[in-house]
């Protein structure tokens, strides 16, 4: 089955897809004391999408404060971008999900548009 999906991925070339990995990121020490970070990879092959937003949540989907280079990430079509998400050590225990969500510009005028959101779960 994995082979089938891999072939599909290679042949299909992801005409219009959103990827956010790893599935289970690890929080590691950052260069700042009292702050941990997760390294995420965002891949955009949705032509109509140029921006993705980030969000960090606990198990009940309450927002958790975080920092990153951009909270709204500008990303070109078929571009991969590494994103560091910084979380205060005092919040690391209750942090559960890191999510990316496509942002659709008002200028996109399709009648029915898909907003995609992918959430990774912190490895404890």
């Amino acid at each position, binding site marked *: *089955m*994995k082979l*089938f*999906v*891999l072939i*599909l*991925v290679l042949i299909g070339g*992801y*005409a*219009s*897809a*959103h*990827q*956010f*990995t*790893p*599935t*289970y990121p690890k929080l590691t020490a950052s260069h700042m004391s009292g702050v941990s970070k997760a390294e995420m990879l965002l891949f955009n092959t*949705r032509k109509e999408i140029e921006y993705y937003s980030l969000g960090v949540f606990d198990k009940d989907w309450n927002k958790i404060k975080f920092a990153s280079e951009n909270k709204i990430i500008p990303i070109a079509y078929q571009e991969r971008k590494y994103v560091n998400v910084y979380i205060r050590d005092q919040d690391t225990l209750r942090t559960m*999900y890191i999510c990316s969500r496509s942002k*659709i510009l*008002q200028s*996109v*005028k*399709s*009648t*029915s*548009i*898909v*907003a*995609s*959101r*992918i*959430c*990774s*779960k912190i490895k404890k």
Partner: protein
Amino acid sequence: MKLNKLLLLIPTLAVTLGAGATIPINGTVESKCVIMTDTDGVYGNPTADKLSTTAADGGVVPIIRYDIITASAYKAVITTPNSFSNSPELPDVVNWSGATTVGQTSDASMSAFETGKVIYNNSTEFDLSVAGSVWFNVSSIAEYGYDKALPAGNYTAFITAECVAQ
């Protein structure tokens, strides 16, 4: 003289070795969920007060493909719209309905996604317990007021497709 011969040998050897070199291609398959917009939906306007993506109403059903590399790593949550993101001014109420069903699958056992789905509010949740590709058909219907005609203009609504790690 010996040194000259040796110098001549070096490029010859380099070419010979280069011609026979093998270049490794490395790849890893990691657990991930990929959301792919397969078909953009279009609202049909069968009656003056109704917008619908169903084929019977002249619309096009949006189709979203999920690629699942590792079974049971993610759940899919698909939310149908309950408001327009872009429309003419609508002073009356819009009544929304929608449904998400499993369409094509790469594995017959994925039919379990449909039987095990959980519906709440305008969201449908699927446990992606089988690896492979699955296509979800999403229908959306908006009915305006009580037999009131929708004002002329462009209408846009969002479907939210989510992958949440378990």
